[in-house]
């Protein structure tokens, strides 16, 4: 515990706050921490959706800061598609152990095994996450569910609220969402309903990366350039593995790649990259001419309204 020394700028016309100006990262961090604490104050059983991806890792980091020196008063929930990167599962388990957290895992495989879900012909498992997610929320009676969704990710999300009401089917009705004013979040809901909460709503991909750099947050190594056996499908580099690739017609090659997002192996593509450090990654993103999802997620390319439809079904 050290006392910080601030190097404070002088007041200028552009910056009337003078020594009391905040950088954009400080402003975003203060807002996200405020959101975590509001939920802790207003809900009985909140849970953080934790995938081991960078956004959920930043969420956890913010939650740790929000309640320091007390432990995070929320459990974690992970929906395991069964096609996760081993590096990510390993990271998840280490984070849980290090911070004394409680982890709930909902396995897609369990639902396929007992017939509640059927494997899709294309092998994609991301669309199958909704049922286990809602089952996990319902069986644990979670009333607030933190997600790492950001409003810059996709057009349908631009209208998402920080507090997003879901009915007993987990569905999102754009016309039932409440106006959200100032920093007054309304978490009132009926029994059986729950509220999805998005503390990173106002962050962009670049903000997240800059924050990871500033806070020196460790990430699963697949976010940085590494050599990997991949094959091309739908214009993306997919990882060869037991989940269903490569097919006969697809050729495996060894390439230097990194992942911009981390999801299910069957639909998360790698990009060619030699970015070995976080500074390299930030430079690459800032110069990139493809959005995060456009480059690396097959599931969002399904249709222009894909995300909107899946939110209505209770997906994030």
């Amino acid at each position, binding site marked *: 515990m050290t006392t910080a020394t601030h190097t404070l700028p002088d007041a200028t016309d*552009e910056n009337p706050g003078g020594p009391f100006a905040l950088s954009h990262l400080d402003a975003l*961090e*203060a807002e996200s921490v405020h959101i975590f*604490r509001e939920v802790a104050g207003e809900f009985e059983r909140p849970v953080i959706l934790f995938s081991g991806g960078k956004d959920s890792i930043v969420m956890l980091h913010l939650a740790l800061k929000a309640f320091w020196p007390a432990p995070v008063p929320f459990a974690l929930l992970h929906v395991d598609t069964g096609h996760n990167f081993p590096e990510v599962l390993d990271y998840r388990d280490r984070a849980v152990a290090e911070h004394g957290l409680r982890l709930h895992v909902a396995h897609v495989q369990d639902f396929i095994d007992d017939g509640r879900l059927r494997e899709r012909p294309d092998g994609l498992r991301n669309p199958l996450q909704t049922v286990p997610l809602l089952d996990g929320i319902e069986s644990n009676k979670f009333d607030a569910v933190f997600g790492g969704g950001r409003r810059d990710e996709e057009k349908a999300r631009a209208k998402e609220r920080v507090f997003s009401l879901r009915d007993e089917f987990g569905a999102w009705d754009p016309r039932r969402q409440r106006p959200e004013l100032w920093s007054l979040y*309304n978490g*009132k809901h009926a029994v059986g309903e729950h509220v999805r909460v998005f503390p990173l709503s106002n962050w962009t991909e670049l903000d997240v990366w800059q924050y990871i*750099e500033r806070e020196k947050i460790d990430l699963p190594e697949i976010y940085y350039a590494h050599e990997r056996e991949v094959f091309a499908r739908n214009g993306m580099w997919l990882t060869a593995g037991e989940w269903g690739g490569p097919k006969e017609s697809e050729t495996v090659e060894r390439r230097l790649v990194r992942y911009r997002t981390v999801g299910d192996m069957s639909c998360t593509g790698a990009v060619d990259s030699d970015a070995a450090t*976080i500074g390299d990654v930030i430079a690459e993103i800032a110069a990139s001419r493809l959005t995060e999802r*456009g480059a690396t997620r097959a599931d969002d390319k399904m249709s222009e309204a894909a995300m*909107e439809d899946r939110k209505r079904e209770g997906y994030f």
Partner: protein
Amino acid sequence: MSTDLHTNSTAPASGENPFGEEASATALLRFATAGSVDDGKSTLVGRLLHDSKSVLADQLEAVERVSLGRGQETPDLALLTDGLRAEREQGITIDVAYRYFATPRRRFILADTPGHVQYTRNMVTGASTAELAVVLVDARNGVVEQTRRHAAVAALLRVPHVVLAVNKMDLVDYAEPVFAAIAEEFTAYAASLGVTDVVAVPISALAGDNVVEPSAHMDWYGGPTLLEHLETVPVGSDPSQEPVRFPVQYVIRPQNADFPDYRGYAGQLASGVLRKGDAVTVLPSGHTTTVVGIDALGRETDVAWAPQSVTVRLAEDIDVSRGDLIAGGRIPVPTKDVVATVCHLHERPLRIGDKVLLKHTTRTVRALVKEIGYRIDIDSLEQRSGADGLSVNDIGHVTLRTSEPLSLDDYTDNRRTGSFLLIDPADGTTLTAGMAGEAFDTVAVDAADEEDWV
């Protein structure tokens, strides 16, 4: 893996950064747009995103594909911002959408609000967090009823800066007199509402004049482009000039071996600068005590300021909980009688005698709607008396009685501690947005003149 919470929050970013070394220290500006249906607002927002290089290749490809499919020769930039299927089908914008972009100088959050008459509530919503509002007019039509309404909403919500963007200058031959007349009329109207900071910019969103790039057609205009103004307008206020307001969100008590006696009050400073050693008052109880420590998210500090989220430790072990306000400087007097200007947000009307929940900062109490003094005609700013209820998009003057005392400031003094929501206790619906105290100067009129208010 280590989660080191002891980072110095002002450390500059390292590494090669195309935004330059300043990237970690740019300020954040939240602003809102408002414009009538055909003023070209979607095109303006699309142009801002496109010309500031915030539109990425795959997004632009999608827009080009759809535009070509409709037989348009150039990409329709308005398509960049139309999000929901219902809107794409109807070609309208039905709600507040948030857009994000950055330049080397600043990070922006844009609350993009529709401009139809029935969507007053959406502009109120977007303006509630905005430090600047862009009001768009069509150069051919000048200041119309909707323009005055947008200015009034910006004034009501106390948005500190207003920009008048006079669009479609290409359709009036880029004529200076047209622009000058509109700017003069709008500035005078805004001044009557108490809005003193108005900057007018002549633009063509379609052609790109003065949005991001300076116009080659308007040599007579010597001011900044719209984006330049957004990059340089002052952000925030000086918290050292404000009284301390710290609504308590949550009590942090680890009760573990390392921190057996730690008791901290977590919250976000709504205004002011708080220092270790400061004398403060806890409201509504009125107990006075001293700040013995401030923890800024895992590290100790001697000073914190709005809008930082911190944890405050106090000298005496007094009873402080969520919903209390730690205050310094001029102390508000807790009251159960709330007089406010409100905007009603829901199709379900608000009536005299309604029992609602009132959410103010971190405190939610029961409240009774005692009086609805008058509605404000947002176009003429005239008071319309005799209302027994408020309909959706109505702005009115109400008196409420609460079950417990609230530590309110006037909204004109403090947007965070002067604002509140009314919530339906039956299903949690957000009904009404409230601003404590009086709005701007409205004109009382004789009831006999109110034949159009049935």
